[in-house]
């Protein structure tokens, strides 16, 4: 049986793969990225050894997560930060909601955080009557459209400047323009007002440094710096898997994240925050809260076979190279995390039964595993998910079909009879192929039916013996 998520996926995928305009837009917008990424990778003395080292660093962190997480939190405590451990999405939402209430926040600015998408934080805050503004340009655009991000790193890459201009015109009353710079300045002006009003800033984190108790945020626009500097309270929301053991590990991870993510040597701003304003500092938030989210990550951690999926640094490189992503588009997945990594982890985070279909939406070409800067064996994990899905009850029909096939090929006489029947019906089937009454329509809609040989191998062998 197929879940409603699967049906939605199929419907959207069918529509978008036939949308040539969409495919061309994605192809062109990734062209510059591909060139820059490859150039910058070539600038490394050994990108391959750097990948290996990054993978080993993440292995060390994730396989000693209890130790490093405790170190991270103890260091935060020492410097007057407040840490909240959230087992579930609900725990995390409630903590942030209560904080907003307690501190009487009115305006909330957010910098890009996929983890907040995962726990549906915006909906919860808006439902409680708070104004929440996404400050990253791409996130702001999809927020105005009432959509979910299209891509982990490039949330609005499916939109043309024309569509964005229409959107701004409609929602903000600004004049239409074809100039990306003018469009960016419209968002800049809107956001400046918000920054100065906001009393609560919410961010994510790319890394958490255990050794020093700092979070690290990678960005280009400066919106994360403003979000975490101006409001009097800063809340950072991050998954427990973000930990790195040492500060100096960033010397490797910051450039690798930038190169894999956007094709830059380093992104514009890489900021480390380790607490509220310290004595002697001119400004900064009065309070710094860190919300550590489990939300079934420990279940994935318990699966030693797929544990390395928690090594992911959310660079989005596997999306960019994935032939499925490039054709069906990010929103088709219906998940917080799109592309190959999303297909691998979503069944763990949200249930295999509803999300197993994602692992079948793959050509198993392995481009994702090859590009991954932390060497996650993504396409192997897609196969692991398929195997695990086959073990579920819901695969009964598939199991019956393969049982019937096994029976058939194990009984030569019945097999020969079946082949004869097939040869008899073949010309009749040709008449109805592709029409509504075709019983093989699911196959013939997009594929040719293989022709059955005139003679079976047995018959052929016999005729040779004479």
């Amino acid at each position, binding site marked *: 049986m197929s879940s409603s998520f699967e049906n939605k996926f199929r419907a959207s995928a069918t529509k978008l793969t036939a949308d040539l305009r969409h495919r061309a837009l994605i192809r062109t917008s*990734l062209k*510059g990225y591909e060139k820059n990424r490859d150039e910058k990778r070539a600038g*490394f003395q050994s*990108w391959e*050894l750097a990948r*290996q*080292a990054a*993978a*080993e*660093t993440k*292995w*060390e962190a994730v*396989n000693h997560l*209890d130790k490093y*997480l405790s170190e991270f939190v103890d260091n935060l405590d020492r410097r007057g930060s407040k840490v909240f*451990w*959230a087992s579930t999405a609900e725990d995390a939402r409630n903590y942030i909601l209560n904080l907003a209430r307690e501190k009487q926040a009115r305006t909330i600015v957010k910098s890009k955080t996929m983890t907040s998408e995962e726990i549906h934080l915006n909906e919860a805050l808006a439902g409680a009557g708070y104004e929440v503004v996404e400050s990253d*340009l*791409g996130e702001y655009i999809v927020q105005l459209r009432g959509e979910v991000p299209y891509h982990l790193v490039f*949330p609005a890459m499916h939109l043309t400047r024309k569509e964005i201009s229409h959107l701004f015109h409609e929602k903000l009353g600004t004049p239409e323009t074809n100039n*990306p710079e003018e469009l960016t*300045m419209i*968002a*800049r002006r809107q956001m400046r007002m918000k920054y100065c009003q906001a009393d609560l800033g919410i961010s994510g984190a790319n890394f958490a440094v255990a050794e020093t108790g700092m979070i690290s945020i990678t960005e*280009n*626009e*400066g*919106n994360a*710096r*403003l979000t*975490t*500097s*101006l409001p009097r309270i800063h809340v950072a929301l991050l998954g*427990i898997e973000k930990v790195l053991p040492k500060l*100096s590990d960033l*010397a490797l991870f910051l450039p690798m994240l930038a190169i894999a993510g*956007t094709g830059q*040597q*380093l*992104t514009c*701003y890489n*900021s*480390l925050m*380790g*607490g*509220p*304003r*310290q004595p*002697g*500092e*001119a*400004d*900064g938030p009065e309070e710094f809260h860190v919300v*550590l989210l489990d939300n079934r990550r*420990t279940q994935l951690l318990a699966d*030693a*076979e797929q544990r*390395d999926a928690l*090594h992911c640094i959310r660079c989005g490189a596997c999306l960019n190279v994935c032939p499925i992503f490039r054709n069906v588009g990010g929103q088709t997945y219906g998940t917080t995390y799109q592309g190959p990594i999303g297909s691998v982890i979503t069944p763990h985070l949200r249930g295999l039964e509803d999300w197993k279909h994602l692992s079948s939406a793959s050509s198993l070409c392995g481009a994702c595993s090859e590009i991954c800067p*932390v060497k996650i064996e993504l396409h192997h994990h897609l196969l692991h998910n398929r195997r695990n899905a086959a073990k579920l009850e819901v695969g009964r029909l598939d199991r019956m079909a393969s049982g019937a096939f096994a029976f058939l090929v194990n009984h030569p006489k019945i097999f020969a009879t079946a082949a004869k029947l097939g040869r008899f019906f073949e010309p009749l089937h040709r008449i109805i192929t592709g029409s509504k009454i075709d019983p093989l329509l699911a196959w013939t809609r997009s594929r040719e039916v293989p022709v059955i040989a005139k003679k079976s191998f047995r018959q052929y062998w016999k005729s040779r013996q004479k």
Partner: protein
Amino acid sequence: MSQREEIIGRIKEALRFEAHRPGHTHASSYEARTSSTLREWLPTVPRDHQGQIEAFARNCGELRTRFFRVSDVSDVTDKLLELKNTEDWKLIASHHAPILDAILPSIGLPILFTEDRPTTQEIERADVGITLCDALIAQTGSILVTARSAGGRALSVLPPHHVVIARESQLLPDLPAAFELLQKTYGNDYPSLITFITGPSRTGDIERILVLGAHGPRSLTAFLLPDEIS
């Protein structure tokens, strides 16, 4: 049981079985890794000081950071006066430091000092934020600032133009050196914010077309002064 104990408990339980180690080769043992092992993989940087200055300048060119190597403080003042006229500056935001106190008064504009705790709105009205930094990084063209070295957090990100003044001895070859410096300078008392600034603020969120000045400064200017003769 506290939430912390609960989650740590679940992690410990989950880690009972070891996961396979990544890859087929071995880069180095994690514990034994140092800056010099990292340097075998990261992009090369010239060994000599002159070469590093050139590498920094080349990176600035690519990033659209304006970079000026100057011979003394009066050169900085001249250049700032020029910028004041072309960009029509009316208000400067900065912080106190001997070298800034030597330069700023000759520009002849009102100055906000972050030590006086101006409001966000006041800093937002400034045309330029002028700061010192902790280091420059040749490998990436980055400028390393902290809440302590550069007058807090807002000063280097809120005004539309950020000007940085650095000494030649502050130029470091690469990222591992930058993290070593942070550890040496701050030890166990880190500033609440550390930022690597690599070019002026930018976005590519509209059709992946590069636009400068998304939310942070549209312009970034770096001055490199020779070291003080003591």
